[in-house]
Each structure stands twice: as C-alpha cells, then as structure tokens.
C-alpha cells in the first residue's frame, strides 16, 4: 500500500498542527510572566507615563506572574520600582499606584464580550442615517473617547434591515459614561432673556442701537414685521434667533440665542480657566469657552442698554437679563451677567454647574468639556441596548465546557461502541470531532497568515505527491487543501453564539461520520453474491448524502451572515466555516481511516 494513499489523513494532520500553532503561537517580547495594563487612573503617579497595553513584568524586584499577583503586589506604597515593557521606572506612591492590569492573552483567539466580560452598547440614530452619517458619528464619538481618556473602546457601524446602528464595545465602561458622554448629541446653545417695555399697544425690543416695534394682538400674540407670533413662536432679527415667551400689559418677554455650537472655538481645560470649588454642601465646577467674534458681537448687541439691579446678597450689580446655557435642550447653567459687561464684546463666557461630590463634579465637567470640544453629533442618538457583563462571569465557563464536552463525548462513544461493537469506529470519530473544533478555532484565530500560508504550501505538496503516485485525487480534497488555509486568514470573535455554532458542527460531523461508517459497512446483494466489496461506490453514496446535507447548511447559513447582526452572525460564520472544513477535510479523512479499518478487517 502506498504511503500517499491516505493523503486526506496527512492533510488533516497538517491542518491540526497549523491550527495548534495559529491558536497558541505568540510572541512574548518581555517573557511569559507579566500583566497587561488595562487602565491608569488620573491620580496615579504613572498617569501619562504608561499607556494601556504595556506589559508590567516586575514590581520592586518581585515578578508579576498574573493579574491576581498584581492585585496583591500593586497595593505597595512609598518608592515603587516597576519594570514595564523591559524598562525600569521609579515612582513615589502616596496613596495608590492606580494601575489596573489584566492577564496577558495566552492565545490568538479573541473572546467575545459574553465570555470575557465588558460592556457593549448599541446606539441608534433617532432619525434615518446614511452610512456616511454613521461614519461621521463614529469619528465624533472616537474623538470624545480619546478626549475623555477612554482607551480600550471600539466603535463599529452595524446595519440592520433598512436601519443603521453604532455598536460600542469596551472593556469596562459604565452606562453612566454612555449617557453623559457618548449618546449625548451635544447641541449647545446659550440664551439671554430680554424684556421689551410695552407702550401704547406696542412692545419695543432693543438690539444694539436699533429698536424694533411690535404691535400687540389678541390672545397674547404679537406682530413682528407683519407676521403674527404666538407665545412659544420663533422669529429672527439681525441674525439672532428669538423665542417669544409671552407678555403682560407692561412688558413682553423674549429669549435670544446668543451662542451655539458653531460659536465655540475653544474649550479651556487649564487650571486658570477651569476648576472645582466646594461651596456649602456642593461642589461647583466652571470652565471658560472661547466664542467666535460673531457670537461675542451678538452678546454685545443684546446686552446694550439693558437695565440692571443690585444683588443684596453679594453686593454686586447684575444685568436684568441672565445667560442660560443649554446642552441638548437641558439647562446646564444660569449665569448672572455683571453690569460692567453691558454692551461689551465678551468672548470667554464661563460654563458652571454643581454636583454633590467632587468626583461627580469632576466627571460632569470633563464630559461637558469633551462633548463641547468634539462638537455636536449630526443626529441625536438613543441607546437601544446595553450589555454589562462582569469579567468573572465567563471564568468558570471554560472549565464547565470541558466537563460538558467530556460527558457528551463519553455518551457518544458509548452509543457508537454499542452499535458497532468496535472501538475502531468510535475512537477516530472522537479524534475527527476534536480536530474539527481545533481547526475552527485555528481559523478563527488572528495574526496567523504565515502559518496558514505554510499549511497551504505543505498541503499542495501532499496533493501533488498523491497525484504523482497515481492515487485517486478528488476535486473536493484539492479544494480543501487550497480553500481552508485561505479561510484561515479571516478571524472572528469566539462568543457564546460561535460556541453554539461549534456544537452544531460537531453534531452534524458525528452524524456524517455515522453515515460514512454505515454506508461502508453495508453490503449490497451483488457484493454478497460475489463476495467482493466496492469501497468507492459506498463512499460515493455516503458523500452524496454528506455533500447534499452540507449544501443545505451553507444555504441556511449564508442569508444569516448577510442579514444577521450581533449574535446570529457569529453563529452562522462558525457553522459555515465548520461545514467547509468538515466536508472538505475532516470527513474525507474519516473515510480514509474507515477504509483502512475495513480493509484490515476484510483482508482485501
């Protein structure tokens, strides 16, 4: 018997080795011991020195083997010596080192959120958004995340049927950050309230040096330039947008838009122009913004000739009109305007607010500054889904999965042994199923192009040798040798859905192997009569069923890949790739093994 007769089995072994390498082969430039920096707190002495993703290998001479070792070691205070990315750093730690670190990845498989913990948020534009708009939203959100200091956070456009979403995945972002920072549209505007005195049935509104007379009509309506405006209605004078609030017999009240997003040229974050002060039981925060020339001139025109009053509490004199600042239609500050600013070109108004704790004030100030710096989103977003999964939820999962797989394998082996009364059918079946899982994982792993290209070369050689030795070389085997390494280049996340896909593949895999075993062991009447056995005929019929079944799987999964978002997609990709590996590589190899088993048994 020729060495190359069972080239399908050799091909499978090459893929198994390639997959093991694709999963496990990693560079450890600083050694296998160490932890990866996940987050550096603002009050950490290492803030700004270390970046997320750097590797810590030792602390004060002690090796940091893993995240739990880091937990105990990192509580050190006083002088601390850290080895990070191969270099030594020294810090004086007063309170806390403030560095969160996680275990280094040991495989090239990217685990899904549901297995390793984290936050996933899906935001939906409130109005229909084109793909360009979604890209614009994502770039603004990325700016916000960078400005805010969120590092391990990813934004993806996701499309449903006729709808678009923005998906955010982060290692640990609370829903508060989403509400305060990411889903805020960031529409900013400032209003000044203006009062127009009423005389002889007309209200007189002053802007700069001009006076606009408005006739009072019935039901509180006024006439602006011949147009009737009801309370709550809007009109524009001298490029300023006014909101008519209402009137009494003596005055008419208006709100004038003095600044909006387009006027903000700079948001100050330096300590001179921003800060937090305790005041009574709350903490006040303030920061200045630089507004455009047009905005500043608008302010001057609107405050010109405005009345003022003396505030008894502070002894200061303020203008009658106040400045109200709004973010996403919510009032964030109302500011008294000092009488000295009347009619002045003011270009650095200050934004103020208060919170109950210093932390909350800090956070609010930071998220407001960030939102204002990044600009407004083209459309407002609503949060449609939030998943917050604790990192420890998945930790016991792999252990339990191993037990479950063992139990399932034991049941399958027992049934197969009972049915065929032979371990020769059952043992290869377990090996084949295991190698299917392994190859799927190897294909899903990332950074493995060199490995898969080598596998392609070796398998092309195997097929070539088999052809040269005049063995039967089937089309599907050739496709397997070429196609599977190419598929190996892609990578996707292994999440629960993908695991479900693996379960589906193992299920159909075992079924197909049973079909192969049964077909090859069956004897037709003719064979019984002639006491011969046509192995190829049997295999052909088995593979008719298997290829037919696989084709239906491909048919079922393809629309899911195109349609599906989120969970369904990972399931479909895994099942599709698994089917491909199954019919082109592993199940033909099983047929080869069974052929050997049969030929020994029947002494052919």
């Amino acid at each position: 018997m020729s060495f190359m007769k069972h080239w399908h089995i050799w091909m499978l072994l090459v893929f198994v080795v390639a997959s093991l390498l694709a999963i496990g082969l990693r560079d450890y430039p600083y050694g296998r011991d160490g932890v990866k920096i996940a987050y550096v707190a603002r009050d950490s002495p290492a803030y700004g020195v270390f970046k997320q993703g750097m590797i810590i290998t030792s602390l004060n001479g002690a090796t940091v083997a893993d995240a739990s070792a880091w937990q105990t070691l990192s509580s050190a205070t006083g002088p601390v010596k850290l080895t990070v990315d191969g270099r030594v750093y020294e810090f004086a730690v007063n309170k806390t080192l403030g560095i969160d670190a996680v275990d280094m990845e040991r495989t090239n498989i990217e685990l899904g959120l549901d297995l390793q913990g984290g936050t996933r948020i899906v935001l939906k534009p409130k109005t229909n958004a084109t793909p360009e708009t979604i890209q614009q939203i994502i770039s603004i959100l990325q700016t916000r995340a960078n400005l805010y200091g969120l590092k391990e956070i990813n934004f993806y456009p996701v499309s449903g049927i006729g709808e678009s979403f923005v998906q955010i995945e982060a290692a640990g972002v609370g829903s508060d950050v989403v509400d305060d920072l990411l889903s805020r549209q960031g529409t900013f505007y400032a209003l000044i309230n203006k009062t127009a005195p009423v005389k002889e049935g007309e209200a007189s509104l002053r802007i700069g040096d001009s006076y606009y007379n408005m006739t009072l009509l019935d039901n509180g309506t006024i006439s602006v330039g011949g147009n009737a405006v009801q309370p709550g209605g809007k009109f524009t004078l001298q490029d300023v947008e006014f909101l008519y609030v209402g009137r009494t017999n003596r005055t008419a009240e208006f709100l004038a838009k003095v600044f909006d997003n387009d006027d903000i040229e700079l948001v100050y974050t330096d300590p001179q122009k921003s800060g937090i002060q305790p005041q009574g039981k709350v903490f006040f925060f303030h920061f200045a913004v630089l507004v455009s020339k047009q905005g500043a001139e608008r302010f001057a025109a609107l405050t010109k000739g405005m009345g003022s009053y003396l505030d008894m509490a502070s002894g200061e004199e303020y203008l009658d009109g106040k400045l109200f600042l709004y973010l996403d239609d919510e009032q964030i500050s109302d500011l008294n305007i000092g009488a000295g600013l009347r009619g002045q070109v003011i270009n650095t108004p200050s934004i103020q607010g208060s919170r109950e704790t210093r932390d909350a004030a800090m956070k609010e100030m930071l998220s407001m500054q960030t939102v204002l710096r990044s600009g407004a989103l083209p459309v407002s977003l609503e949060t449609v889904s939030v998943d917050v999964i604790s990192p420890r939820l998945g930790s016991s999962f792999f252990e339990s999965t191993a037990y479950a797989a063992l139990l399932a394998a034991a049941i399958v082996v027992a049934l197969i042994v009972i049915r065929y009364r032979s371990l020769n059918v059952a043992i290869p079946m377990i090996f084949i199923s295991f190698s299917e899982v392994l190859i799927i994982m190897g294909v899903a792993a990332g950074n493995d192009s060199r490995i898969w290209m080598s596998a392609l070369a070796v398998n092309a050689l195997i097929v070539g040798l088999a052809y040269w030795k005049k063995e039967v070389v089937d089309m599907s085997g050739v496709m397997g040798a070429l196609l599977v390494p190419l598929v190996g280049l892609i990578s996707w996340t292994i999440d629960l859905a993908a695991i479900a896909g693996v379960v589906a593949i193992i299920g159909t895999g075992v079924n197909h192997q049973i079909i192969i075993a049964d077909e090859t062991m069956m004897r037709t009447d003719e064979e019984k009569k002639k006491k011969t056995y046509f192995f190829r005929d049997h295999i052909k019929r088995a593979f008719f069923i298997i290829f037919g079944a696989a084709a239906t799987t491909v048919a079922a999964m393809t629309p899911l890949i195109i349609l599906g978002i989120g969970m369904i997609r990972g399931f479909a990709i895994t099942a599709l790739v698994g089917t491909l590996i199954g019919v082109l590589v592993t199940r033909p190899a099983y047929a080869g093994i069974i052929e050997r088993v049969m030929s020994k048994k029947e002494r052919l």
Partner: protein
Amino acid sequence: MELPIKNYKLLLVIPIALMVVSAGILITHYMRTGEWFNRSFELTGGTLVTIETKQATDIGAVESALSQFKVSVRSLTGFGGSKLLIQAGSDADSKAIIAALGSIGIDTSVSSVQTIGPALSESFWVQAQLALAAAFVFMGIVVFVLFRDPVPSGYVMLCAFSDIVVAMALMQVFGIELSLASLGGLIMLLDYSVDTDILLTTRCLRGTGTFGERWKSSVKTGFTMFGTAFGALVALYISGLSPVISEIAAVLILGLCADVILTWIQNSVLLKVHMERKGLL
C-alpha cells in the same frame, strides 16, 4: 421485507395527529394572546439580569424580595455553579434590582445586565423572521437540485416544515420562549431534519433491495444519529453552561423527538406511496 404494518398508509395518522395537536396549540395561543408564540426579551425589548452564584438560590425568596419590580425569575444550575436569571422590562432599574438581591444576602459580585430597547428588538424580530424564512427557502432550492424531482424534494421540505411547527408547539408546552438562541436552535433543527430526510430519500431512491430493506437500513443509521445527537444534547442541557446553550439544546431535544416521527414515519410512507405510483418498486 416490507414496512412493519401491512396497511402502512394508516401510519400517517400518527404524524397527522401530531401536526393537528401542534397547530392547535399554536392557534389557541394566537387566539389568546394575538401572537403565535412567546417572544423573549431580546425580541420584544427588556432587561435580563444574570447573577452567578455558588449555590442554587431559593427562587421564592428572590421573588418576594423583588415583589416591587415587575420581574420573572428563573434559575439555571449546572457544572459551573448556579445562575439566577431575572427578566424585567427595558425601563427597569437594574441597579435597584441588584441592590434588592444583595439585601437578602445574595452575592451579586458576578453579574451581567443586558438591556434591549424596543427599537433594536423590533429590528431583531424582523431579521429573525427573515432568517428563518430565507434558510427554509434556500434549503428547499438545494434539496430540489439534489433530487431533481419535485415530489420527494417537496416531502423533505414538508417534513422540515412540520418539524418546525411541532418544535414550536413543544416549546410553548415547555415554556421556552422564542429568542435569538432558540431561533438558532430552530435553524439547527431545520438542518438536522433535512439531513435525515436526505439520508432516507437517498437510500430509498438509490438503494438496492426491497423498500423495506432500504427503509430499515436508513432507520438503523438514522437512529444511531438520533441517539448520539440526543445523548450529547442532554449532556449539554444538564451541564447548564449558559442560558444560550441550554435553550438551544432544549429546542433541539424537542425537535429531534418530533423528527423521529416525521422522518421515519411520515416521510417514509409518503416516499413509498410516491415510488409505488411511479413504478419504482
């Protein structure tokens, strides 16, 4: 050898009765609620709080602690400890729910909160329906290309369709909601059902020997397949790895049982009738 009973056409009574009862269950549900089946929070919008605990928790105590919220409580126990699953509306205050659980002494340090708003769940629901329909239609095309004869191909798809109907009715009986996970289970079931029917049809149309022999050989293979799949799924189900895996396993276990009747009785009888008419036997 022939089919076990002489008047084999009478065997069709079993699958017909199964279909009538299943359709009855679905229709009754439709009349009562206006929906064919219960959709899970993923497809209607809602919040799912999952708490991982070392020991199984007393559901009654949890329910009374959460009586102020509108929630439903389930638990899942397996190799990796126990999971407490609390389902509430999408506007539910998950922090308050977790705090209430903490107040009755449950360790809530390992938890996950999933919230899906009505907008996304509606999109999921549309996709789920399209996915199932597309999977069915595309599979039908492949099966037709495979056998190039509309009658047996139609029987394969009829069997697959019946499998889905019976599985959905059984899901209702056992209180399994239609979720993205159970939808995945249904698509796997569709795949499994078509696989067994392709096996049966291939063996019967292209095999040798009498119809009974062909049938018997495919039943032997089919039951081995059923046994291993069933055994492995039960192992997965009792392992309680995750609600997703358990739900898929449960749907498949129910569907596999339905498939035994629908493939090895319904489709076999229909195939024999077809082959007799065509003079293939």
